[in-house]
């Protein structure tokens, strides 16, 4: 199962996106600042944008889903329960998991953006597609919500998961790291080797590397463990 990009490019006014690479099974993190082209790449991988040139090849992928950056864009129904059903899921389990069991009959637009994000992530992850694309999955979430989202992402055993984010505090364990800058996608390789090549690594990782620690992954727990190891 993989997703291949061959010399793909998209131009929108002054902005140009250029990328090549292969996304295999596992968790990928596409990191980059706001406006670097992550959302455009997410739409492209989801098949919702057609490249101006180059090809996007899917192999062994029978289902794909994208969680959009702003959760309100996903709303197509008048109640929270209907919203879950519109994803082809039973509301009870999803709403309990998202901490919204008592909000089933509410208008989804009455939920806060964080609650809506939790609902949206719970639905999309529960669908368990072969290709799961998450555009800024941690935005609008508090730290507890971010950690829950990380655990849910890490719990996916199969398929390709691609996270597009500028998040720099709470991150899940990943397999492969990519960086996006000014529309160009650069592969940094597999973790842990990729960590040292991460140009815009989060401050806690930079600190750990400066101290001589070699974390096994990018999650805060891994960094903490690596720091404890070198300090005895």
């Amino acid at each position, binding site marked *: 199962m993989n997703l291949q990009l061959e010399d793909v490019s998209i131009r929108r006014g002054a902005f140009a996106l250029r990328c090549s690479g292969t996304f295999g099974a596992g968790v990928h993190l596409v990191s980059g600042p706001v406006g670097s082209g992550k959302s455009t790449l997410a739409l492209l991988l*989801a098949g919702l944008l057609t490249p101006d040139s180059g090809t996007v090849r899917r192999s062994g992928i029978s289902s794909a889903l994208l969680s959009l950056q*702003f959760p*309100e*864009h*996903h*709303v*197509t129904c008048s109640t929270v329960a209907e919203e879950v059903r519109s*994803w082809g899921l039973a509301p009870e389990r999803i709403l309990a998991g998202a901490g919204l069991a008592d909000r089933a009959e509410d208008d989804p*637009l009455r939920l806060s953006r964080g609650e809506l994000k939790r609902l949206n992530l719970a639905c999309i992850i529960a669908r368990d597609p072969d290709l799961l694309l998450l555009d800024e999955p941690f935005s609008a979430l508090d730290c507890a919500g971010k950690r829950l989202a990380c655990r849910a992402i890490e719990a996916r055993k199969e398929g390709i998961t691609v996270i597009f984010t500028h998040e720099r505090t709470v991150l899940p364990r990943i397999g492969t790291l990519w960086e996006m800058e000014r529309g160009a996608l650069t592969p940094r390789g597999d973790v842990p080797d990729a960590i040292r090549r991460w140009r815009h690594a989060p401050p806690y990782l930079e600190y750990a590397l400066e101290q001589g620690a070699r974390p096994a992954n990018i999650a805060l727990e891994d960094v903490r463990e690596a720091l404890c190891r070198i300090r005895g």
Partner: protein
Amino acid sequence: MQDPRLRILVTVTLSVAAFASVAGAVATLVWWACFASRRRALPRPTMLLGVIGMIAATAVVAEISGGAGFAYAIRMIAILMIATWTYADRRDGEMIDVFVWLLGDRIGFEIGLIAEMGLQSLEVIRQDVAQLQAAMALKGVRAGVRTIVPLAVNLIVTQLRRSEEQSRLLSVRGYTLGGRICPKFSTSRRELVISALAVLFAIFALIPVHDIFYSYTVKI
């Protein structure tokens, strides 16, 4: 057209002419065909066909029920063409420039800011609609009667929330009333000529030329 003052003048003049009479609408279309940068100004074909389709359907219903359907269609198409041309040529901030030039730093700035925010939100709504379409495609939901109401509510609520955030932001930054800017405009000779032609077209379309010649003939 670089000078937003002339562009707004042309837009208002031709829109009034098109609204006032069929002759005005025809004059507006002639002006648009001769002087507007048509290819750049036209919206995407699907959107253009959709809007023209809606106008045509309304016109047919009006015509069948005894109203002036044809006159309605030609007027609306003329106004649509001028509106798309104006929108395609606009630049961020020019509404504030024009209204400050016209009405000064207080009232002019206020009206210009409101107009600017309104126009910029059109682009944001366009992006929202694209995202909603993407979300529907992901769910496999087809646009229909059942989905149109929640989607419309979603767009309106999102826009209202955004407006509230913007107003709070202005308030937090200490905005109360008016502001000081020195607008600068550049005008070419061609722009002056085609703007004058638009005004002439509108005057001829609005003046009941037939009545003038008729009364002149009767006097003779």
